[in-house]
């Protein structure tokens, strides 16, 4: 039986006492780039964390290729937000990328030559081979993000979750990342990306999930990323937004 890479049914999650996600349901199509879009506090990162079991769920089911998350960890790649990282940690870029293999190594095995080779390949894919030995605080924001992306590549997954990978990176890195995401798509992999910039949504993604605590809409970009749906997602804040995303929205109306 052919299962969807990600199927969410009736997912609710809460921090402390405030519900931040309410009754979310959607099914992600295989081999697509999916943008998760919504205003601040809409629960975009929370959605990813709830799916990955990093925060407890109030209700709902999540299946990945038909099975619960705990059984499918090895085919999932994850790029967390960069803010929470202590960049002064005594570790090199190569070391960080090798961490992508830790989940596959199990409890007792140590990373060895094979992991090192694989990590070097992943670093090469993001154009960071020359920086393998650098301590991570000596990299620029864009380079740090590339290293994180390489670490996700090293996870060799089928389904990727990326939490705001474009925040604080330069234009060149943004282009490099999007090229890489398209390559992943070509290989039949599915990528979910928390995204902020409405101007690039149509260019980058095939599919969108519009989120504001509740699911507003999900579906292909052409049919879902409409002025009407955005109005419902962002509510009164659209006034500012219309100026930003003017050209995009004109096409829709």
């Amino acid at each position, binding site marked *: 039986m052919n299962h969807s890479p990600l199927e969410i049914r009736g997912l609710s999650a809460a921090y402390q006492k405030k519900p931040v996600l309410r009754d979310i349901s959607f099914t992600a199509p295989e081999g697509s780039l999916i943008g998760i879009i919504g205003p601040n506090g809409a629960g975009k990162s929370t959605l990813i*964390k709830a799916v*990955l*079991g*990093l925060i407890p769920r109030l209700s709902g089911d999540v299946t990945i290729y038909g099975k619960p998350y*705990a059984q499918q*960890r090895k085919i*999932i790649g*994850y790029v*967390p937000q960069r803010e*929470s*990282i*202590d960049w002064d*940690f*005594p*570790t*090199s870029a190569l070391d*960080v990328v090798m*961490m992508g293999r*830790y*989940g596959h*190594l199990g*409890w*007792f095995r*140590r*990373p060895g030559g094979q992991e090192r080779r694989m990590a070097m390949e992943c670093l090469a894919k993001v154009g960071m081979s020359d920086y393998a030995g650098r*301590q991570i605080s000596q990299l620029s924001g864009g380079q740090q993000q590339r290293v994180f992306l390489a*670490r996700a590549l090293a*996870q060799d997954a089928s389904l990727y979750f990326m939490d705001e990978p474009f925040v604080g990176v330069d234009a060149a890195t943004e282009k490099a990342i999007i090229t890489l995401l398209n390559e992943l798509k070509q290989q039949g992999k599915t990528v979910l990306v928390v995204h902020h910039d409405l101007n690039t949504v149509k260019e980058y993604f095939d599919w969108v999930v519009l989120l504001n605590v509740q699911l507003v809409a999900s579906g292909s970009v052409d049919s879902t990323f409409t002025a009407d749906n955005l109005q419902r997602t962002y509510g009164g804040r659209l006034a500012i937004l219309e100026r930003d995303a003017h050209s995009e929205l004109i096409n829709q109306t």
Partner: protein
Amino acid sequence: MSDLWIIVTGALVASACGIVGCFLVLRKMAMIGDAISHSVLPGIVIAFLVSGSRDSLFMLLGAAGIGLVTVLLIQLIHQSGLQSDASIGVVFTALFAIGIILVSVYTRDIDLDLDCVLYGEIAYIPWNTLQLGSLDMGPKAVWGIGLALLLSVALIGIFYKQFKLTSFDPTFAAAVGIPVALFHYLLMSLVSVTTVASFESVGAILVVGMLVVPPATAYLLTDRLGRMMIYSVVIGCISSAAGYYAAQFLDASIAGSMVSTAGFLFVIALLFSPRHGVLLRKWKQRRILADAAAEPFV
């Protein structure tokens, strides 16, 4: 001979503390180490009263338990909405106060005075030896701390990658299926066991010096976690040897001298470390400025 035993004990304390201390420094939990080192006092006293001796495995376990209770209490109070440093302060002072009261109530029943709590009794260690039949096996403290060190080395050696990843990026670690909480509490248990084992020789307050100062010094010298741990062990051993002789010279507390020596080495690293030293960085900046100023004339 007794000189050697004291230095060996000091070096073992420094090594055990240095290894677990690296993770405390990197996880920004140095003050939790401080809290544990204070709050094991009531645990030690209670274990004395129950078991009647100060060198039992039972005591190590009991104290490790109290260390975990400390961490749990701190977390609980922190989660109820208090700043974490305030909750650390509330918990460890309360437990330490209980410890002092217990010491003063049972002061006749147990062989532990407040001076020992403060400075430890490293000077008496060579005479409290372990006898196996008629065989003299060396000081008991050496065995105790040696075991604690062995335990830390073994656990951190086996689970090095887990300890490293959970310290660096706990969110990612949880996502790839590493039980983050388990390794957190495992580390806290190691800190507690190390603290209890070291307590007798260096005293409650100075344990935290050994837990934090050598790792922080090593942190200024290298960008690799593995090397940081080795350096902090080496720095700890140098501190304990040099501290011992300084104490002899000044006729003063040995444990105090050891921590003071470690502090001295820290200041040296702070100023002169090739990577992160303050002076060297200033000098480099000045040279860049000078180069920039000289350029138009070239």
